[in-house]
């Protein structure tokens, strides 16, 4: 068990980092201009302080409505996730320092705070509350991009997560009914509760085929919002899967499919942030596969990879954001030759790209190889080959295709300046971590859940394998790069089901269904109609019995009778 330092907060045994940040974020509109910028940085600093000073143990546990609530379960697993979330919140705050939009700042901070809230939650109820708060706050980071596309995309994001939230809640209720406890540990019940909670977690982890909300929404978010988004939602889900579902075999295969799905679509992507978003799916696939395997090395690997991934993926999104911020363009087909005008951004981007590709001396190498090593130790050849294939694909798209067509390649005629200083500082900090962890992996390994970590990434075998794999991918890329020229096209993914197929079905049912329904009702009514027709034949307005003839003849006969009686009277 580790703790970085401890602080005696006045009047508190433990300052809940999330509650402090949420309350602090709500006060942001009280400040303006430079004062607000300083306040936001202080807030991020306080958040880091509260997280890093958290002592392992159980904090803030109480009874509420006869339920045991634990808001501060701090153990090795929750602490390592909270550390990287706190670092990321600070980097995100620096990157967004220049933005003048209170809604985005509040949303970003509440989002980060909720992610840490989920991680520290020791029971399923408080987990669920923070889970939903994450969704409600993060959607504003998409909407505040203020375009019709972002608006629609944000709504789809919200709806998918709302469905996920309902499934999770249903699972939690069933779980409580079955076990009588809300404690969040390994989920070991049978039946619906197990699957509902798992699906709820899998939606947030962007597990294929439930992943399309991510690649749909993240590229449409604000430039600074996408950096926050890339870090929190999927990685909190990785944490919850690791806590609740280690050694679940289905996750091995779903994870392996995720890695390949992501890299395949990334080869086709044109929008730079969509390409990177597909690589979130792919990279989270490694973590999910590690969780599925469930050995100590695999779980340590997944945790380490989540830590490293948050930092290099945020750096990738920050560099891509810098390009969009300075050029106003997001499509590879419209970019090119930027390295001379944004050299620092290029440098930072390449550090992140080398990290995600697991080049030696970067953070990805010391984390991803851990998961692969776990599979090698278990001699699971097929999954190992799938994950290695995805490794090659990662370098192909993020390390070669994107930088080649955005920074090198043909000159697009764009002459942007470097991004604002605060963005560069944020990128610099993330880049530092990418290299620092790669060079000094023991720093990261000390935080991992299963101690001691007996793993060395820098063996001759690993180095030879990794260098050969990546450099030969590079060789084939340069030979075939003509075929990879980005196209002005989009790609259909599983969101096609609810974006086109479902509305189309509804419209079809709406048009043809009405006619069919009316015909069906007419058939049902047919006997009634026959009875009605028959009845109206005699009793209707034109029916036999309704005719005035009897009345008319009655008058005639009365007249005849009267005439007859008159006649008789006269006789």
């Amino acid at each position, binding site marked *: 068990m580790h703790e970085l330092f401890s602080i005696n907060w006045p009047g508190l045994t433990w300052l809940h980092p999330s509650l402090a940040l949420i309350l602090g974020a709500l006060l942001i509109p009280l400040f303006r201009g430079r004062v607000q910028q300083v306040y936001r940085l202080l807030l991020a600093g306080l958040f880091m302080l509260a997280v890093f000073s958290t002592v392992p143990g159980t904090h803030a546990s109480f009874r509420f409505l006869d339920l045991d609530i634990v808001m501060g379960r701090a153990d090795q697993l929750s602490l390592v996730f909270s550390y990287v979330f706190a670092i990321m919140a600070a980097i995100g705050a620096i990157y967004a320092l220049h933005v003048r939009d209170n809604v985005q700042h509040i949303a970003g901070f509440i989002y980060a705070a909720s992610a840490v809230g989920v991680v520290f939650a020791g029971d399923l109820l408080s987990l669920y509350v923070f889970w939903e708060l994450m969704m409600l706050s993060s959607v504003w980071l998409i909407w505040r991009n203020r375009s019709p596309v972002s608006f629609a995309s944000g709504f789809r994001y919200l709806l998918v997560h709302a469905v996920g939230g309902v499934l999770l809640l249903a699972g939690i209720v069933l779980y409580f009914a079955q076990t009588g406890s809300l404690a969040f540990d390994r989920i070991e019940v049978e039946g619906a509760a197990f699957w509902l909670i798992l699906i709820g977690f899998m939606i947030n982890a962007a597990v294929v085929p439930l992943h399309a909300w991510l690649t749909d929404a993240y590229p449409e978010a604000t430039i600074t919002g996408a950096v926050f988004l890339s870090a929190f939602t999927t990685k909190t889900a990785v944490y919850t899967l690791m806590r609740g579902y280690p050694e679940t075999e289905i996750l091995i295969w779903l994870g392996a499919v995720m890695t390949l799905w992501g890299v395949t679509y990334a080869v086709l992507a044109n929008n730079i942030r969509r390409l990177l978003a597909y690589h979130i799916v792919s990279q989270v696939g490694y973590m999910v596969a590690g969780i599925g395997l469930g050995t100590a090395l695999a779980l340590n690997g997944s945790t380490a990879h989540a830590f490293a991934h948050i930092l290099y993926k945020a750096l990738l999104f920050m560099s891509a954001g810098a390009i969009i911020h300075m050029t106003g363009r997001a499509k590879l087909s419209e970019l090119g030759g930027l390295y001379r005008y944004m*050299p620092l951004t*290029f440098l930072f981007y390449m550090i992140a790209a080398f990290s995600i590709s697991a080049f030696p001396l970067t953070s990805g190498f010391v984390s991803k190889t851990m998961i692969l090593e776990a599979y*090698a130790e278990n001699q699971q050849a097929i999954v190992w080959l799938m994950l*290695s294939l995805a490794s090659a694909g990662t370098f*192909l798209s993020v390390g070669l295709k994107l930088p080649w067509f955005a920074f090198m390649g043909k000159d697009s005629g764009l002459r942007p300046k470097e991004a604002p200083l605060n963005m560069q500082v944020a990128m610099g900090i993330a880049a530092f971590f990418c290299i620092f962890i790669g060079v000094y992996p023991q720093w990261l390994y000390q935080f991992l859940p299963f101690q001691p970590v007996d793993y060395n990434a820098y063996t001759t075998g690993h180095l030879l394998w990794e260098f050969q794999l990546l*450099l030969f991918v590079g060789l084939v890329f340069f030979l075939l790069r003509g075929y990879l020229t980005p196209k002005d096209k989009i790609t259909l993914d599983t969101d096609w089901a609810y974006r086109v197929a479902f509305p189309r079905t509804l419209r079809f049912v709406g048009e043809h269904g009405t006619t069919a329904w009316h015909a069906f009702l007419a058939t049902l009514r047919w006997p009634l109609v026959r009875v009605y027709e028959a009845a109206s034949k005699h009793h209707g307005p034109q029916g036999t019995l309704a005719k005035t003839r009897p009345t008319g003849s009655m008058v005639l006969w009365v007249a005849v009778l009267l005439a007859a009686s008159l006649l008789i009277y006269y006789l």
Partner: protein
Amino acid sequence: MMIVKWLDFLVKHGQTLKWVTLAFMLGLVVIDLVLPSAYDRFVWETWGGFGALFGSLACLILIVGAKALGFGLVYRSENYYQDELEGSEMSGDPREQKERDNA
């Protein structure tokens, strides 16, 4: 800026860089073939040079596979989603829809 000069230098000497990298790659394969294998959990780990073969094949498979998927199934024009739901009340910006209705 210094970085630009440095990058320009690399770009200018692209040919040299290419040959140095290729020589390095050849060296890697040779070393992997000569050195005794560090691992033997999978049979290919004992062969030597498998990383190079796997890397090349993987890249080829991914490019061909992805492009086949793209042209065969999933590539669409950029306006696909807008066109597909044109005229349906379930698409687009509701504010625009409202304006249209008012007009």
